[in-house]
């Protein structure tokens, strides 16, 4: 950290800031209320979780791809979970699958992605000094940290962490006698998730409030960068859906510890008929997926927002169909709430409901298609600079489309009968939400690293990282579709028990090899990331020649982001390669009156309103009483 400390302290001496007060180490790096530091905290925590989560997947991929291998070499890490003959414990296999899902979906792609970039970019791109409530923002991170600690601790339990799948369907998750993972591991899982949800709500309220209230002068909603639109919509999704997960988690806790029967009925287990009657396990599934499906978009939308920004910047073109992009995100967000039961076609839910949800689900393909085509048209006749961020954004579009298409198969309830809970599903959602969102995360890190740390990441290593990851991801998940079409069920410890799974041994081995290959490639990123924080080339003011406001701040923005006044905004953020303009980009804070040579007629009319924009209230939260 010494480099940052050094850089920031130098900067602070130069800073003329009416709100300046020096902070000690704890205030600045630990209990920070500064959105940039909180974003970095989220990012680093997310990276740590990603390493843990992906390592878990490699272990169970080895089990699946090389079922005969001797895993004794893992004994130093996994201890009792590796038997004396070098075999992975079947219970721990399930725990690994469960924790991989939980960690990647919630701790990496929700907290690590939204938490990092919503925090970092919202104030910088809308022109605000900080979040609406810095204190709540800090609380949000520390609730997440608490959730992380509890989840992390659960991995080390004698009975193992939660192991009922990341969806934790009761009664398996409700009955400690049904599985070792349903004991203390599940208790900690539920506790951790309750804190996690609190963290998400604190964060989400803050994001929404900030975007609505703290936009700078002239930053109307139709001038917001698409990143901000995506973060805003994501936060709204989270705010509506996470409380439902909280309630379902609380009801499950009641069932586990206080003898209620929300999800339990007619159960005979271990020679004993339980007294619970009248509950329904399906109720939990409805509640869970009411969060679970929007969660897919909570994970994906920030990635799409980041991609919109990065693609436009590096194709040197305005994003195609700005309004259609917003409309399609709103459409996706709305539909996200009314498609949840497509995860439940074969749970015994009324088949009529299945028809309704199939219809609604397939509608989602339409706004998604619009987004895909808009990205492609943005590339068309661009002047594309392949920064690592751009590569990952292009990769995201490819993964999003390829993975999304198989969703149309799964959304069809008649076809879902055969494919439900097979590897086809696993392959589908890993491409469309797992890998695509992870690519969004990478794109964001590569693109905004200069703003975060004032230094550049090595672009060549970034490009190498991209190609290895991109090829690796397709090499994992295209063959995984084949395995799924053959009917291989997911969450199987091994495929030796059935004749119909006595094939594709080599395919599973190939998938595992590709997974190890992709995993290895991530160390290039890790090295590049941490090395560049300290030793990277010092970033220029606007490395990607981007239009958005964050590049008008000092190279390392201090507390409050801008020295002096917050800039006003006069145009949208996508004036790239405008005909007649001197340069191929015009930042948002340049008034039309200064770009007469490139203005369109309707823009010349806006010159008159510039005075009004300047006369507006500064909307500077540091200047108003607080």
């Amino acid at each position, binding site marked *: 950290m010494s480099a940052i400390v050094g850089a920031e302290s130098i900067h602070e001496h130069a800073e003329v800031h009416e709100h300046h007060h020096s902070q000690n180490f704890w205030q600045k790096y630990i209990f920070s209320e500064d959105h940039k530091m909180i974003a970095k905290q989220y990012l680093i925590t997310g990276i740590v979780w990603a390493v843990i989560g992906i390592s878990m997947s490699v272990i169970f991929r080895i089990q699946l791809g090389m079922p005969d291998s001797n895993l004794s070499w893992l004994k130093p890490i996994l201890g009792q979970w590796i038997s004396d003959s070098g075999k992975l414990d079947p219970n721990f296999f399930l725990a690994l699958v469960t924790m991989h899902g939980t960690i990647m979906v919630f701790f990496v792609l929700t907290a690590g992605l939204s938490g990092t970039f919503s925090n970092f970019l919202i104030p910088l791109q809308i022109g605000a000094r900080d979040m609406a409530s810095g204190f709540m923002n800090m609380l949000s991170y520390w609730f997440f940290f608490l959730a992380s600690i509890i989840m992390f601790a659960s991995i080390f339990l004698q009975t193992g962490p939660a192991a009922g799948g990341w969806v934790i369907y009761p009664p*398996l998750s409700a009955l400690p006698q049904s599985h070792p993972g349903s004991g203390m591991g599940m208790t900690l899982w539920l506790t951790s998730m309750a804190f996690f949800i609190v963290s998400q709500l604190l964060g989400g309220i803050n994001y929404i409030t900030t975007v609505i209230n703290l936009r700078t002068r002239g930053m109307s909603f139709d001038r917001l960068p698409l990143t901000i639109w995506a973060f805003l919509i994501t936060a709204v999704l989270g705010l509506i859906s996470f409380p439902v997960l909280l309630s379902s988690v609380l009801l499950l806790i009641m069932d586990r510890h206080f003898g209620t029967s929300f999800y339990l009925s007619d159960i005979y287990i271990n020679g004993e008929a339980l007294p619970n009657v009248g509950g329904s396990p399906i109720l939990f599934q409805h509640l869970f997926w009411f969060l679970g499906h929007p969660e897919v978009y909570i994970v994906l939308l920030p990635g799409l927002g980041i991609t919109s920004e990065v693609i436009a910047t590096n194709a040197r073109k305005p994003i195609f169909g700005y309004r259609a992009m917003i409309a399609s995100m709103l459409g996706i967000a709305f539909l996200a709430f009314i498609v949840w039961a497509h995860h439940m076609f*074969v749970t015994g839910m009324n*088949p009529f409901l299945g028809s309704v949800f199939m219809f609604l689900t397939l509608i989602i393909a339409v706004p998604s298609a619009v987004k895909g085509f*808009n990205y492609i048209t943005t590339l068309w006749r661009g002047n594309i600079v392949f920064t690592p961020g751009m590569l990952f954004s292009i990769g995201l579009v490819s993964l999003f*489309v390829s993975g999304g298409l198989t969703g149309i198969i799964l959304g069809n309830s008649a076809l879902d009968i055969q494919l439900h809970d097979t590897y086809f599903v696993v392959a589908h959602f890993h491409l469309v939400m797992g890998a695509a969102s992870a690519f969004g995360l990478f794109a964001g890190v590569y693109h905004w690293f200069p703003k975060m740390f004032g230094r550049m990441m090595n672009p*060549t290593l970034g490009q190498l990282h991209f190609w*290895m990851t991109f090829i690796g991801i397709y090499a994992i998940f295209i063959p995984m579709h084949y395995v799924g079409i053959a009917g291989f069920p997911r969450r199987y410890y091994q495929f030796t*028990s059935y*004749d119909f799974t006595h094939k594709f041994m080599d395919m599973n081995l190939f998938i595992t090899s590709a997974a190890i290959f992709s995993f290895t490639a991530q160390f290039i990123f890790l090295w590049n990331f941490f090395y560049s924080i300290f030793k990277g080339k010092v970033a*220029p003011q606007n490395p990607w020649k981007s239009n958005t406001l964050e590049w008008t701040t000092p190279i390392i923005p201090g507390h409050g982001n801008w020295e002096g006044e917050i800039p006003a905004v006069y145009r949208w953020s996508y004036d790239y390669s405008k005909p007649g303009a001197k340069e191929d980009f015009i930042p948002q804070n340049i008034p039309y009156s200064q770009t007469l040579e490139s203005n369109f007629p309707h823009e010349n009319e806006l010159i008159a309103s510039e005075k009004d924009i300047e006369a507006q209230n500064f909307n500077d939260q540091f200047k108003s009483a607080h």
Partner: protein
Amino acid sequence: MYYIIALVALVFVVLTGIVIARLQNVLKSFKSADTDEIKHTGNRFNGAMFLVVLIVGGAAVLWSYLDARSEFLPVASSIHGRRTDDLFWFSMGVLTIPFIFVNVLIFFFSWKYQYKKGNTASFYPDNHKLELIWTIIPAIVMALLVFTGWRAWSDITGDAPQDAEVIEITGKQFNWITRYSGVNDNQLGNYDYRLIDAQNEVGIDLSDENSFDDFMGPASAIHIPVNKPVLLKIRARDVLHSVFIPHMRVKMDAVPGMPTKFWFVADKTTADMRAELNDPNFNYELACTEICGMGHFSMGTKIIVEDEASYRKWCAEQATFLATYPEYLAKVPDNLKAKAMKYVPEGSVTAAADSTTAGSVGSGTSSLR
């Protein structure tokens, strides 16, 4: 398959080599360059990579698809199964078009419009006609897929025909228990989970006369008749399970407290399939597809599909539950004892004759204690 892995590995190694070689140059130039401008390093290389990955990757996908094809969907042996298979391949065919089209455009545009000094990107912010086109076309295609899928779904999940053979299948950690509705009434007797014990594994309620001729299927395999609708009544005893019969395209969760069902017509006997696949060891299988604990991966059983005559014969040979465990006669209410006696072998009757306390346990409906 090993040589593919080797091949892919080779490609990766070569790729890594190229990039590292380039890296050397770049690092050298990095040290010297100290301008404010960020160099567009490796732009041509990355552009070319998009073309290479498109062509090599496309070929790899095509080849692997053709190679793996024979192992895809196991041969369908139910009537609705062939219908959903056709629908699946039709949908896949339709979706392959955008898959290829979109990916080719992404990769090709990336290569074609890579940065060149002096080039300027087109300022092309929107075009309503284009956007309308690519909103409407997917909408129409989706409508088509929804309609075909919806019709298949309604037929599959519709009510079972009256003459369907009713078989109850109950999932528990970690095996399946079957109960047949018997040779006389094709009706399953009531059950109550509180009646479950070591012998009465599914909690048969013997105060219901329909249960007298019910018999438990053997653990080794489930027998079903060919070309006759079979209605599976699916239950779970402890946690969620899911009945999955890959060859029949059957899947339905087993939920404690909420009986589910699935009906289908198997139209190829096990013998037919053995002949068709030229595999004398072939067996239909039933697997669990809902995570249920440690034994989840091996919670399966076999299914024997046979012609109706052999099926009937097999059913007749099975001992009813009461015949297997005559002591449960005690639970039969007095007024039905005579009827139940028919299903109990001669010698074992006396033991249960005078116990009259049974039968007071409530039937299927449950109440809070």
